[in-house]
């Protein structure tokens, strides 16, 4: 089933971390397996926020007490590789024993850097960008937000996802949002099933794109990244996806200053939309919007094949 939510402020910032947490907690009944957030703060030119995880939950559980050494070795290797690339690490935050947030200063090709870091065994980069903070883990919204201290995060927009695993395993690599590797600051959340996943995935793999999971939703992130890399505007990419991707889907894409949505040709997956002059909120169910807007509001359901893009 899955629940998705997104919000974007026009011309101002707010406690997006707390708001997204409340919204996704209200959608917990749509899927309690894992929760993820992609929130966007004030961009810092030249500085990148690098979020990565060192191992998957199953490996940590299986390895027992030996995992500490293994994680340390991987972290040291990442540090070494960053240094080798001439990256200055400005700050290091440990969110959990396997998930880290680095602020790095880097001039040059971030794709090559990302690929080199990810080459370390078990390591997956969750996000890389000037303003994007992407966190995801097993558990409901309150648990994940608490673990990663999301509350109080000030930003302009964000998207989030609460997952009921139907197409792949319950693990962090299959959790949303997906970062559109290697495209800085682009993230995707999706509710639905994609039926031409393998065809499209092979097509994308032939073009050199990387997949980290077997989750069909990852395709949307890769597909969006592919389009953006070819100079296609976000709105056009969303529009094309409706005819090129089969299945049922409602998905949200966030970039550094935009938030977009697309709904499949059958309008099979829900989305409720609230628009005002300075705030746009959308979620799978109205109950999530009401979690942050207690006053009386007017909401609508976007129709089939509807594509919208909002500017921060």
């Amino acid at each position, binding site marked *: 089933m899955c629940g998705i939510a997104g919000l974007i402020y026009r011309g101002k910032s707010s406690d997006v971390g707390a708001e997204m947490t409340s919204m996704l907690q209200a959608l917990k009944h749509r899927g309690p397996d894992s929760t993820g957030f992609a929130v966007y703060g004030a961009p810092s030119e030249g500085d990148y926020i690098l979020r990565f995880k060192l191992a998957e939950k199953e490996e940590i559980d299986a390895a027992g007490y030996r995992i500490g050494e293994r994680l340390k070795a991987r972290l040291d290797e990442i540090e070494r590789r960053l240094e080798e690339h001439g990256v200055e690490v400005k700050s290091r935050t440990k969110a959990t024993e396997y998930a880290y947030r680095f602020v790095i200063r880097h001039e040059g090709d971030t794709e090559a850097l990302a690929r080199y870091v990810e080459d370390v065994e078990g390591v997956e980069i969750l996000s890389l960008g000037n303003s994007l903070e992407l966190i995801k883990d097993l558990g409901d919204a309150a648990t994940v937000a608490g673990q990663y201290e999301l509350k109080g995060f000030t930003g302009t927009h964000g998207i989030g996802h609460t997952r009921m695993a139907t197409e792949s395993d319950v693990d962090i690599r299959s959790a949303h949002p997906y970062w559109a590797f290697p495209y800085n600051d682009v993230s995707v959340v999706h509710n639905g099933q994609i039926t031409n996943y393998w065809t499209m995935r092979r097509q994308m793999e032939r073009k050199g794109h990387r997949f980290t999971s077997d989750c069909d939703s990852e395709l949307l992130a890769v597909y969006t990244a592919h389009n953006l890399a070819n100079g296609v505007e976000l709105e056009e990419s969303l529009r094309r996806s409706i005819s090129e991707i089969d299945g049922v889907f409602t998905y949200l894409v966030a970039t550094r200053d935009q938030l977009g949505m697309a709904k499949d040709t*059958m*309008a099979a997956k*829900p989305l409720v939309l609230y628009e005002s002059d300075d705030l746009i909120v959308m979620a799978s*169910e*109205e109950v999530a919007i009401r979690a942050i807007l207690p006053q009386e509001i007017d*909401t609508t359901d976007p*129709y*089939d094949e509807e594509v919208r893009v909002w500017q921060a």
Partner: protein
Amino acid sequence: MAGVESDVSERAPDDKATRDARKVPPDAELRGMSQEDRVKALGMATDQLTGRSMYIEFQPGEEERFTYPWAPDLDFNKRTEIDAGELSTTEVNQRIRALMAEGYGSIVVQNPRGKHSIGVGILNRLNLIIEGSLGYFGVGLIDGPNVRISGRVGWSCAENMMAGTVVIEKNAGSTFGAALRGGDLVCKGSVGSRTGIDMKGGTIIVGGETGALSGFMMQRGRMVVCGNAGKNLGDSMYDGTIYVGGEIKSLGVDAVKAELSDLDRKWLTRKLTQYGLMPERGVDHFTKVVAGKQLWNYDNLEPSEKKLIL
């Protein structure tokens, strides 16, 4: 057809109890009848014997009560409020039932804040007023209440409604009035996709627009859309009527346009006026959509196949 033989054998014994049960008149009266009337009175007409009769064999008595036996006696002047803000869906619905048992005929639900499944399964006359918006499956499976909702409703509002009225002031989600069987379901705003899917009776009225596949597999009833309709309108509809005031993006399989008759115009005028949705330019511009009945293949089996399934 299998029941014909046993039917006849049941008719054979001519004792008094059987005659009374079948409402057969006394012999003296029978003698005074013409041959044709006598045959009918005895249940011996060919159509009666073969079971093809369309006669209604009983008259519902005036004194018969068509309410559920456990239905509480309500006083519509007794009014009360429920603040749903801190309650769960189950608590709100139980509270409504408890208040009905106490005889409250007008219940106001405040602060529903998009909760799902509020006001479901009410099988009674009741004035239910919802001050705010509902989530999914609002007022589903109801039989009788008059509901007013000042906000918006989510997916599958008034699903399988049997009787009563539901009036929504703002927009509604997809599968609005799915499998509706009776009553009037009115949304003054716009509704989502698949409105009135599998509708089996009653009336759906939409003040604004409707999405794709509205009236999909509709079997009976009427749907009125004052605004535009999305693609595949009335796809695979068996029967029923759809009226659209605006543009139709495309018609579905076997949905065809029909001529608007005087009866349609009168009915539309009355219904739309009743709910304050009468367009300024009248109802002449409405397009009527009905089933082309090209998909009606139920009885086209070969005789040998028929034997197999009977």
